[in-house]
Each structure stands twice: as structure tokens, then as C-alpha cells.
């Protein structure tokens, strides 16, 4: 009996590392779909005063892109319409879905000769990690991190806590602003509204 217990103990000890490894692997697997998203709760819908309006020339900017290059609004002048999608912050509930939604409708942008620049005040490493789990994105993701929120400030959509509004701005090929929407930060703008505005752009 003692011998048996001794054997059992020995075999259990031998198995323990394996069990630990397996348990950790299973937990890592569970962690994978466990939400990494931080929920800030309900926020004041908007918290800024836009400095741009339809008809204005869009303030130019040149920001670092997650692919390592720079993205400048002026580069699209005469070539493509541009949708600027400002989102408040990486790893927050609504933002974490808004861009993946745009990611599956590239053709709706292309049909209206438009491209998309997603902008947030997060730094590049954060944007890299966050957008990485969205899959391959077809559009530019730009960091308005430093000087902090400078572009958002120029457009008058920087909130008092240092994040941008959830704002959509459409700039036509001549650099003129055709649409400004500062959306309630707590909810997702409807895709059909964006598509409707894209269709209105001069052909």
C-alpha cells in the first residue's frame, strides 16, 4: 500500500509540470477571446466646439502612420476624397468596432473615389497592438499623439480630457470639407449615413 502511494505520488509529481503547462495553455486560449477592451462607462456625448465647417478648406496635417510612414492630407489633393475618422481611444468599446466595420466595406469607399484615414491620439505602439487584432486594415491609421491631439485641436474636436471626439469629416478632392459630424462618443455612427454622404460627393 505504502509502495503504491509512493508510486502514485511519484507519478503525480512527474505529471505536475505537464498539467501546469496544459492548464496555462488552456487559460491563454480563454484569454484570447476574453475582452481586452476597457469600458469607460457612459461619457458626456460631446465635449468640444468644432473649428471647421462644411465649405472650409480642411486644415492640413502630416501624421505618423502605423506602417512606419507619414500620412499627409495634402497628398490626396486632386486624387481622392478623404474620410477622416477620429476616434477617442484605442481599446474602448465603440472604437474597437467602428474601424473593423469600415474594414469590410472598402468597395463602398472606392465606389465613391474615397479613402479613409483613421486617427486617434494614441501613440504608435498602442495603435499597432490595437489594430493588429482587427485583422489587416486597408486604410491608413494615423497617430495624433505628439504634440498631443494637435490635429484634433486644429479641427476643434479635442475633448477636455485629451481624447478626440468620435468625429467623421469628409474632405473632397479639392481639399474642401463636405461633411462634419461630431457623433455622440458613446455610440457608433451608422454606416449607411456615411455611405449616403459619400454618394453626395461631386463626381
Amino acid at each position, binding site marked *: 500500500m505504502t509502495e503504491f502511494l509512493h508510486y502514485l*505520488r511519484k507519478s503525480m509529481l512527474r505529471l505536475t509540470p505537464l498539467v501546469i503547462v496544459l492548464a496555462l495553455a488552456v487559460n491563454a486560449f480563454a484569454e484570447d477571446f476574453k475582452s481586452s477592451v476597457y469600458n469607460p462607462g457612459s461619457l458626456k456625448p460631446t465635449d468640444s466646439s468644432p473649428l471647421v465647417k462644411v465649405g472650409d478648406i480642411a486644415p492640413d496635417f502630416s501624421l505618423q502612420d502605423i506602417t512606419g510612414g507619414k500620412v499627409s492630407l495634402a497628398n490626396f489633393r486632386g486624387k481622392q476624397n478623404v474620410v477622416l475618422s477620429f476616434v477617442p481611444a484605442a481599446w474602448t468599446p465603440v472604437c474597437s468596432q467602428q474601424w473593423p466595420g469600415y474594414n469590410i466595406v472598402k468597395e463602398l469607399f472606392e465606389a465613391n473615389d474615397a479613402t479613409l484615414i483613421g486617427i486617434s491620439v494614441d501613440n504608435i505602439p498602442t495603435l499597432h497592438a490595437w489594430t493588429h487584432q482587427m*485583422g489587416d486594415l486597408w486604410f491608413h491609421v494615423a497617430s495624433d499623439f505628439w504634440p498631443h491631439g494637435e490635429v484634433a485641436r486644429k479641427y476643434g474636436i479635442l475633448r477636455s480630457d485629451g481624447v478626440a471626439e468620435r468625429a467623421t469629416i469628409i474632405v473632397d478632392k479639392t481639399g474642401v470639407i463636405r461633411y462634419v459630424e461630431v457623433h455622440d462618443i458613446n455610440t*457608433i455612427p451608422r454606416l449607411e449615413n456615411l455611405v449616403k454622404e459619400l454618394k453626395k460627393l461631386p463626381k
Partner: protein
Amino acid sequence: MRTRLLIVLAIIFQLAMFVSPGEAQDFKLDAKGLSQMRFPSPEGVAAKKYLGLSDAPEFTLGQIGSEAVLVMIFSMYCPVCQKDAPVVNQLYQMIESDPNLRSKVRFIGIGTGNTPYEVEVFQKKFSIKFPLIPDDDFSIQKISSHDIRTPTFALARKKAGNQLEILKIKVGEIREAREFFDSISRLLVSR
């Protein structure tokens, strides 16, 4: 003796880790609430026929003409749902080509927080063959025990009076269509 006890406790602890993938295990849908939810009827004739619905503008899951309903709660915006869409299509094909299961279960997607337009975008983009229904105002959230993480799958069986009984809930993507198919088969066929 003490060492042995510690080892046993350690092993029990390790095994416990296997079966506790966070809140996913505790997620529940209120069966009564789900039975009472009214959804807009799908527009297409084929979708209506597949679900066995009348021409009424709205329907409840219990009115679907099969013994059981497999519900996928998703969002067009959710990257995990997008990634899982091919697997979901594979699962649908498996159900439809299984002589035992195809008459027993109907597959339906509920696009939570999605407008009809957004649901249609998802349907077309991923060539989803089963009906997808919008749940624009997050109604399904109101009958859930936790915040819904999309996708979430629920298998429900009809009881008397079009009431539903929830047989299985799976939070998160399917990943392996065969495994999921087998688990529904076991619940619905081999009894």
C-alpha cells in the same frame, strides 16, 4: 502526509483552471425573454421559407418551423465575427447536408446593435446563406446575464406554446465547425 495533501490540492487547483474560462461559463440568456422577443421578418422569400414563417411583419423564434433554432448573436462591426464567418458558413453547410439534422434545426443570426443596412453588408460580404436579422436597439442585451460578447451562439429547443428551452450556449467564435456540429448533433439527434 502533508506533502501528499499539498500535491492533491495542487492538482485539483490545476484541474479547476481547465474549467474556468472566466465569465464565459456563467453567461446566460433568459429563455422566457428570448421566447418573447419579436424580430422583424426577413424580406426574402427564401429566408421566410427556410424559417417556415408566415407573411407577418414580425416573428418570434418559437414560430420558426423547426424543432430547434441555432442563434448566432453577432455584429457587422465585430472583427472576431468577421474572422469566424467562414467557419459559420461551413457549420451551416454541415447542418444542411446532414439528413438527421437539417430538418431539426434552423440557423439564424441576430445582428445586435446593427441596422438592417449593416446586417445586409455582413450578409453580402461573407456570403452568409442563412437569415440575418437586425437588433438595432440591443434588445437581446436586456435578456442576457452579462454584456454580450460577439459572437455568441445559443441552441434552443421549442417546447409547448412556442416557448424555448436553451440547450447550449457558446460564447466566442466557433473556430472548429466539426466540433460544434458534433455537439449540436449529440443534443438533437442521438436521443
